[in-house]
């Protein structure tokens, strides 16, 4: 597909132009962290690209809390309504390759069986993704170990690579091609292409080499003693899973407000004891042992077995977020060595 370049100084004007047609979302500083936010004011645009957003794209397609339907009770009767008013189209700018790659996985999950998750796919359909190649990976990043999407991005429409005072812009889909049709984009030269290529290679060189985790995951030891060790220190919080771009588990809950109310879903995690606890007290994953194993096995063993895709994109968020320094990269390496 076609590639062009855009001057960094033109990004603001370009996005402003887009804003007429759709909501433009980009990473901005929100206190101590970086988060995807709808851009309202393009005049004072300050997009935070160097630091990865604290959360990936998960909330963009499955909000932390999402109303499923509303009900109203009168006497012994009930009436349900579900608001499906069309949302505005969105463009998300500054998506990392790992976060986009995670969508391949969440797409698979949400299409797992009929019925597909219509709420998720409606949002997917309405969203255009503009990626930016990482030039400053975090200390915990290991995406290159998982796949080659940093060099060959997937699941996005347009991929930008920082080549000095401009971005090299590769259209990956027809939507992407339309985007670079905008006036701010200029034709790319071979030198631009070369510069982009070498920028990518420079980052990749600093990151770990690929490992066929899916293959190795097949032989993980169910009873690996490491899980006892991990369970000892794990605090059983959900920081790792809630920040994970592929984690998708949710809970369904009721919000009763007198005679009215709603059913909503909200993020949930396999790290919480109650996740699998049944009403009569039985819990198939009763201790942190089983739960730490579930997280790792789900990503590196069950997901390849079920969907043919790893459930990890190597974004490293769980590693930075863990208050007790449980490092999934180390854990997986150890499991692979232990088998």
């Amino acid at each position: 597909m076609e590639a062009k370049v855009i001057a960094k100084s033109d990004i603001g004007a370009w996005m402003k132009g887009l804003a007429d047609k759709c909501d433009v979302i980009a990473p901005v500083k929100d206190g101590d962290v970086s988060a995807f936010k709808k851009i309202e004011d393009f005049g004072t645009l300050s997009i935070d690209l160097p630091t990865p957003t604290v959360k990936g794209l998960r909330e963009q397609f499955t909000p932390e809390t999402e109303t499923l339907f509303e009900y109203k009770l009168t006497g012994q009767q009930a009436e349900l309504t579900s608001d499906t008013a069309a949302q505005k189209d969105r463009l998300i700018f500054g998506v990392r390759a790992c976060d986009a790659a995670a969508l391949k996985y969440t797409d698979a999950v949400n299409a797992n069986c009929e019925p597909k998750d219509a709420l998720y796919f409606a949002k997917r359909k309405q969203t255009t993704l503009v990626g930016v190649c990482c030039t400053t990976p975090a200390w915990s990043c290991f995406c290159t170990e998982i796949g080659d999407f940093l060099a060959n991005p997937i699941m996005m429409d347009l991929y930008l690579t920082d080549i000095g005072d401009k971005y090299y812009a590769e259209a990956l889909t027809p939507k992407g091609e339309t985007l670079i049709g905008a006036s701010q984009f200029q034709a790319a030269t071979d030198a631009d292409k070369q510069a982009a290529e070498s920028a990518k290679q420079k980052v990749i060189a600093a990151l770990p080499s690929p490992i066929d985790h899916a293959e190795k995951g097949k032989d993980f030891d169910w009873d690996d003693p490491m899980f006892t060790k991990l369970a000892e220190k794990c605090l059983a919080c959900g920081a790792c899973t809630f920040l994970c771009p592929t984690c998708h588990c949710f809970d369904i809950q009721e919000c009763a407000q007198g005679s009215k109310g709603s059913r909503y879903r909200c993020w949930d995690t396999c790290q919480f004891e109650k996740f699998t606890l049944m009403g009569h007290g039985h819990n198939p994953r009763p201790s942190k042992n089983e739960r730490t194993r579930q997280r790792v096995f789900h990503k590196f063993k069950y997901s390849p077995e079920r969907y043919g895709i790893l459930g990890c994109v190597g974004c490293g968020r769980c590693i930075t977020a863990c208050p007790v320094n449980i490092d999934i990269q180390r854990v997986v390496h150890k499991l692979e060595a232990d088998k």
Partner: protein
Amino acid sequence: MENELRQKAKELLESGQVKQVIGYEDGSTAFKSTPCFASSPEDADRLVWNPTCVNNLAVYLPSAVKQGKVAVAVKPCDGRSVVELIKEHQINRDDVVTMVVPCPGVLNPDALADIDPKTIKNIEWKGDGISVTTDSGEISIPREKAFLDKCLSCTLTDPAVTNIKLGDSPERSPLKDKDAAIAEYEKMSVDERRVFWAKEFTKCIRCYACRQACPACYCKECFVDKNGQVWALKSTDPEANWFFHMTRAMHLAGRCIGCGECERSCPMGIPLTLIGRTLEKDVEEMFGSGAGQDPDALPILGSFDLTKDPDPCPE
């Protein structure tokens, strides 16, 4: 010091005095350590004590003592958590051996902001502050930048439950007032504070890292996890988040020792220690005592003083 710690741990394990020693070991990167559960004398060799040992290990005690007697490395601040746990009947005094480590202060991650994390090889105390060894040489970071805020105002002495004192307490005078951190906050008007917290709590994703990292949050079932809509929704509606944090704060009133693990663990950067400190200040002012001092004291909200307690309609 580290050797002394390892030696003591070894003795305790070898003699069978304790089943395990909870301390710190090197983490997956040079600027992080990780909790270490040593159950054999060999394990004890992995124990470290350096500025990256930030975790409050008291959080592990209630479950750890179920396997038998435990020795735990505690900083003077963390020792206050042990006091609270004993006071609240979560551990027996006899089931825990506290090894109080001499603490000049622990690492403020912001101190490393200008250093490429991948180049860091080692971090240790040096002089008043810390020294960071990197691929390109050694960098000294002064005390006021190197340590967490709580360390800069720390005046704590050995906790009331000290069993083993390792090394000598470092000579230090506080650099900051304990309430310097909240002084700025307190300048806000009441309504500004409402807006401030509404914004902060909106960030919350309910991962409960704050709660899980807190040694005082040992409930088997948190109020927020009750089945059905008893107290709080699991949703991240701003109001529900507010209720969760406000209630958690009230639950910690008179019990929070200010270790700051909640804020450190929060992936969303919510300034949770601000809440804890404000509330503890009130508790100290109103009821004259604070958390973590005396294992035999009555709980602040489980006692009263007929004459001194503030009254809504004083005579």
